[in-house]
């Protein structure tokens, strides 16, 4: 495996996660509590992005499969789940949380194999946080009347959910848990490059004894997702993914009376003011953009550094980048894993090329990348103009664009100068200034002196073209309730 070259004397020996996991050769759809063969008998392969090896194959969901799933969800809603008391619903959801905790290591490994993210992240963040989402929402099920006072807590019906490949298991939890707590039933489609952990979650849901049809998982690509969101009997559409696809979804369901929430792209500003705790800010920058290879909608992909501390910040940032370990995601020491797909790698490389062509200065730490699989070293561009493509468009990879600024009002204007508004970060030691900036940033999540923190109790979602609706926390429940206005 590839290691950073800067430490010739005391390098970390490889420390692969070796727990054996069980991945079936083939997975069907999980519909109405059973594993159902796809109507067109078609399957597609899912591969490991770090080795290129095929891991399994999963069903290709047709319109007919989706229809079967929606019908099952509707029957479960009308027959049992919609009528069940909140207390009992909650108990099922608690069960799911516990079962995930019990099988956490297995899910972490499969998440890393299928998606390419470092085992450290899937083990310490994705899977525990997913369990926490179920646990948190479970407790809401019998308390919904307190969430929105003087408002009937009425469920919507069938929720169609389409999730991305960057946090496959966590996003499934993030979507399913509040939907169930509020009394809806679910048809969920995981991303085509990372379907395995959602299917593993189906096993957990079956083991938890949830009534048949309450959660249905259909695999497939974009067409399958379109079939779900456009299905006339789906009452609620929840999508996380790119702004482009989100817009298509909104357009396609414009004529239907569906409640929609969209959690889309971002181009977050991470701002370091002159009095910031610089070492911690640099750490936050690294976590902001190289966490999960930058495949994070709220990644801090634009760094703004006040001019008078620019040299120190850049020196420290580059040094920190030099210590990042890039390689086998299953190695416990890996900091930056594999790019999720060949297609995404092409996109990232195209942007890097654009950045170089545009005259920005590039820095990448020296590292031996593995020969097989999809890899991109952590990359930082300096000398970037506000108008350059790498500072404007979401790259969704480990690529940081650095700009400088002189005054607070200047950086607020630059930070908000984007169609996106998902997240932002500010590093500043002075409280009154910090709150000036966090208040002025048009973003749904603002991290002050920290970055990329997530919690089930904390609402997440964007302003502007980063989508609408919140997920998580009390406010996230609103996305799954019929709140009359």
């Amino acid at each position: 495996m590839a290691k950073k070259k800067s430490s010739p004397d005391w390098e970390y020996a490889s420390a692969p996660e070796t727990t054996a996991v069980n991945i079936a050769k083939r997975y069907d759809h999980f519909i109405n509590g059973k594993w159902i063969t796809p109507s067109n008998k078609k399957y597609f392969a899912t591969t490991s992005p770090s080795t290129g090896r095929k891991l399994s194959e999963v069903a290709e969901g047709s319109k007919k499969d989706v229809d079967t799933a929606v019908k099952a969800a509707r029957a479960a809603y009308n027959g049992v789940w919609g009528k069940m008391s909140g207390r009992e619903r909650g108990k099922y959801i608690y069960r799911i949380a516990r079962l995930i905790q019990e099988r956490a290591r297995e899910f972490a490994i499969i998440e890393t194999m299928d998606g390419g993210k470092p085992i450290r992240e899937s083990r310490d963040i994705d899977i525990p946080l997913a369990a926490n989402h179920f646990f948190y929402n479970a407790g809401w099920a019998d308390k919904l009347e307190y969430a929105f006072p003087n408002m009937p807590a009425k469920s919507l019906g069938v929720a169609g959910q389409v999730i991305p490949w960057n946090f496959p298991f966590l996003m499934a939890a993030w979507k399913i848990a509040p939907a169930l707590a509020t009394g809806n039933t679910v048809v969920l489609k995981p991303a085509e490059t990372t379907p395995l952990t959602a299917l593993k979650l189906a096993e957990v849901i079956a083991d938890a004894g949830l009534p048949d049809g309450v959660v249905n998982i259909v695999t497939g690509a974009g067409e399958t997702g379109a079939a779900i969101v456009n299905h006339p009997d789906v009452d609620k559409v929840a999508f996380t993914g790119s702004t482009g696809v989100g817009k298509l979804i909104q357009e396609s369901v414009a004529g239907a009376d569906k409640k929609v929430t969209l959690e889309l792209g971002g181009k977050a500003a991470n701002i370091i003011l002159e009095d910031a705790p610089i070492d911690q800010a640099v750490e936050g920058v690294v976590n902001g953009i190289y966490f999960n290879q930058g495949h994070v909608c709220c990644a801090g992909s634009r760094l703004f550094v006040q001019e008078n501390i620019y040299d120190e910040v850049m020196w420290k940032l580059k040094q920190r980048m030099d210590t990042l370990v890039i390689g086998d995601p299953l190695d416990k020491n890996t900091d930056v894993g594999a790019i999720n797909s060949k297609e995404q790698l092409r996109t990232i490389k195209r942007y890097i090329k654009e950045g170089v062509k545009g005259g920005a200065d590039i820095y990448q730490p020296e590292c031996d990348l593995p020969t097989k699989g999809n890899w991109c070293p952590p990359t930082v561009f300096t000398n970037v103009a506000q108008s350059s493509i790498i500072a404007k468009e979401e790259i969704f990879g480990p690529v940081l664009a650095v700009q400088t600024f002189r005054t607070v009002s200047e950086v607020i204007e630059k930070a908000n100068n984007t169609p996106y508004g998902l997240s932002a970060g500010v590093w500043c030691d002075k409280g009154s200034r910090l709150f000036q900036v966090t208040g002025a940033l048009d973003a749904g999540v603002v991290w002050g002196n920290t970055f990329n923190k997530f919690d089930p109790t904390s609402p997440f979602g964007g302003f502007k073209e980063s989508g609408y609706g919140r997920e998580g926390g009390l406010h996230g429940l609103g996305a799954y309730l019929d709140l009359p206005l």
Partner: protein
Amino acid sequence: MKRIEVLKTYKLYIGGKFPRTESGRYYTPEGRGGKVLGNICQGSRKDFRNAVVAARSVAGGWGKRDPYNRSQILYRIAEMLEGRAAQFEDELKQHGSTAAAARKELQVAVDQCIYYAGWCDKYQQTFSSVNPVASAHFNFSVYQPMGVVAVFAPEKSALAGLLGTILPIIAGGNACVVLASESKPLCAITLAEVLATSDLPGGVINILTGNRDELLDNVSTHMDVNAIVASDLTDAHKAAIKANATHNLKRVIIRKEDPAKSESPYPILATQEIKTTWHPIESSIAAGSGY
């Protein structure tokens, strides 16, 4: 000799001023018994564009005002409405209401002003949250106005419906551009006169009269409009607005309840974004050693 009545020229209300429509067009809605109400401006897409510019230029400042101040300004609107009660009632009657119904609607409208004036400094307190995250962070979610909101006012309820739609929007610190009821525009125009002499900064509420079908696409595709609040839409209108809104993902809030009749803080929240802020909480150096 019989005195000749001075007829009123009806204008638009943009940025605190009363321009005629730049298009020079007018339409002549009919009131009770088929009586023509007057030459009403048929606002154009350029009027709308100008109104958005006006709204944008004051939205930030209005949103940053102390809630106490916003509250007093809304209360002031109630005072002004009450003082003009006779005129509004007369207009409502011209639009077809009985005297009793007109009186009732005026009273509802004034009371709505009081109701939402009171919410200005309370919705944040009632609905924001401190979120108990499982790490050493202080985490809170607060509401923040969306910015510029375009409004398709209720077609049927000329005064109470209009105010029931607008008040929650501005109570929450947004600016708005309102397309008044096409068939019943008089109260909206008089309201503009009330607002112009109230303490509300010019541009926070802009009122256009005109044709909904004509302006629908321009309003819903405008890239500098953050949200649309609409009532009494046809299915075709709804679909068009939602599809058009995808250009900048403006928020579309379709009022299902009659804004003239429903009072609640939820319409305020509907034109708010939720912002969640994280900050670490320091602790003293812990006793012990090791990790």
